[in-house]
């Protein structure tokens, strides 16, 4: 049975995340691994730093004190983690998911997700973590790191949640978006009477061929609306298309440039995630 790895924390996205995951689980008949990752004690800053000022006796006393501080905080974190997981479990159960595995771990989020990635069909994350400012235009730093490091489809939840009826494929002809199309045509996820849109945005000299994709989608039983548009800013073109056509889910290939490249040019994918207020399904 397929597994979905759902990474939740105490942020406002947790509820939406569970709702989206429950929908996907029902579509493809999957079980859910509900994951919460605690920070390590070393990720917190020490309350004081007296390095160099201490003799041995003071140092061991201080170590004991610091350990006690960490211990208390660790217990609180554990309690909080348990509450978050129980809350998520309740939502999933209510939505009708049958099998839920609770995974409570400690460490770096990226490493933990990599550890469980292999057994998962799809990974779910919120746009921002609990510590990020909600009004901010920037993405959560964890999301960016996870998106770059994993190899499975990544479902990114936004602050709005609504039933998914129309989806849009942002098409650039590259390998990752081809993978997305393979997934859509082969897997049952989006096949139950959903409306399919495909938008190809051509920058100055691009020439994106859509006829082949159109044929593949048609063969798979999708009645899709295909549109090709000229615009130097693909992210703007796509987000206005989403708003105009009331798209509920955006599907795209992720980060096809190397990291250095995207640093210099600004990644279209990252700005898409920022600009669109709807859930995204990213393919590597």
């Amino acid at each position, binding site marked *: 049975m397929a597994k979905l790895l759902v990474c939740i924390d105490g942020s406002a996205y947790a509820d939406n995340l569970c709702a989206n995951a429950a929908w996907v689980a029902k579509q493809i008949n999957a079980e859910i691994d509900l994951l919460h990752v*605690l920070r*390590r*004690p070393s990720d917190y800053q020490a309350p004081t730093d007296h390095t160099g000022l201490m003799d041995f006796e003071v140092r061991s006393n201080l*170590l004991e004190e610091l*350990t006690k501080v*960490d*211990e*208390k*905080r*660790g*217990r*609180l*974190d*554990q309690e909080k*983690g348990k509450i978050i997981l129980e809350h998520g479990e309740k939502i999933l159960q209510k939505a009708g998911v049958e099998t839920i595995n*609770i995974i*409570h*771990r*400690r*460490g770096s989020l990226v490493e*933990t997700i990599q550890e469980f990635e292999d057994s998962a069909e799809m990974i779910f994350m919120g746009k921002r973590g609990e510590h990020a400012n909600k009004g901010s235009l920037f993405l959560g730093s964890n999301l960016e790191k996870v998106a770059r490091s994993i190899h499975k489809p990544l479902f990114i939840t936004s602050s709005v949640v609504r039933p998914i009826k129309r989806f849009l494929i942002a098409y650039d002809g590259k390998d990752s978006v081809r993978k997305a199309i393979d997934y859509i045509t082969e897997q049952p996820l989006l096949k139950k009477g959903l409306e399919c849109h495909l938008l190809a945005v051509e920058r100055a000299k691009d020439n994106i061929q859509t006829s082949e994709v159109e044929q593949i989608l048609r063969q798979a039983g999708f009645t899709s609306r295909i549109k090709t548009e000229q615009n130097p800013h693909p992210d703007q073109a796509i987000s206005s298309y989403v708003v105009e056509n009331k798209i509920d889910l955006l599907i795209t290939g992720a980060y096809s440039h190397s990291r250095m490249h995207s640093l210099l040019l600004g990644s279209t994918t990252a700005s898409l995630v920022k600009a669109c207020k709807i859930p995204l399904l990213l393919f590597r």
Partner: protein
Amino acid sequence: MLSLSLLYVKRNWLGNIRNDILAGMVVALALIPEAIAFSIIAGVDPKVGLYASFSMAIIIAFVGGRSGMISAATGAMALVMVTLVKEYGLEYLLATTILTGILQVLAGFLRLGSLMRFVSRSVVTGFVNALAILIFMAQLPEFNGAGIQMYGMVALGLAIIYIFPRFIKGIPSPLISIITVTAICMFFELDLRTVGDMGELPSTLPIFLLPDIPFNLDTLRIIFPYSLTLMAVGLLESLMTATIVDDLTDTPSNKNRECAGQGIANIVSGFFGGMAGCAMIGQSVINIKSGGRGRLSTLFAGLFLLFLLLVLGDWVRQIPMAALVAVMIMVSIGTFSWSSFKNLRTHPKTSSLVMITTVIVVVITHDLAMGVFVGVLTSALFFARKVSRLLKIESHLSDNGEERTYKVYGQVFFASAGMFSDSFDFKEVVQQVTIDVSVAHFWDLSAVGALDKVVIKFRREGTTVHLLGMNEASATIVDRLAVYDKPNSLELMPKH
């Protein structure tokens, strides 16, 4: 007391008179070529090696810890003193010999002989192989600029050594080889270097002399390092030989007495103008194989050697170097443990590595003691690594998923402490962790430190930790320090 010492004399001296005397004579004959050849390796007159050989044999007969073992000037010791003789001369060598003896007596009183058990079999094999290689290499300069006659005579000598034992059993074949080669050289008047060309031979009994050197700190600074190496090499080879003789005769020996005995023999040898020596593996085996068992065989070997030299000195002078080179090549071939090649395939890789390391270090540094030191060190490290694998940690999660129990089996010490710490899953979030160490052993402070770190790490994450069986596990560390758990703890208490 009297009857006891009579019994001792009877057992060690008079138990085997006829065989001891015969074996002693054979050994004396076999000692001559080697004593001369080893003197030449060391770069001193042949008489220095010969004086050493008979004074050591005579003294060790009384003070040694292993009856039937032969001690004399040896190749291993000669190799150590080469540079000393080259740079400072004979008098410094005699002083070094005396100091070596003093150090060996000290080692005997400090019971360093018992340390021999830390020298593994692989190190001993490496030592023996390296010794063989060094002895062989020391013969090569003799061939420098030599003509066809030299090569021919050496080949003839070797042929006699290896073929004659098939026909003649009673006389050592190296002696036959030397006599034959010498006779041929004299008869055909071949122009080859002889022992007489190498230096002076003894014409009188050795005389007691103090070494003619300045007695100050500078002298000590020169001779002390050599003495230390000679002490280590001498004791090592003597104790190894003692073990071999123990095995051959199926009787025990007193290793610490042998240490002190070697020391006394070297002190006497030094005062009578002899170089430092130690037990000889080859000659001791010849002695045992010829029937020698008691101290009388060793004594008689020394006395007969003295007699031979005083009577036959003029003949010994005529021996060509080619004959001695042949004998030395035989010694090196006989010393080398050829089975160690075959064993490379079957023995554990670490043992072979220790053996090869010992050989390589000796051949590079020309220092047998350094080789043994490195060999012992590597074998100790390999042993620590092997033992560190004797650690297993099992864990299981309670049914409600809130408590994990770790059970530690095996040895935790400096080499396995890292593996111990890595066996715990700090990424898993559980409320309680139990670490059961009751069947584990914590050998040192690294182990306790590692456990401490594990406990603190769990605690910092807010996990409650329970330790089980810490007293049993750390008993190995505290048993020397702690009083409370000993049976007579009540009597011990008032002393504090």
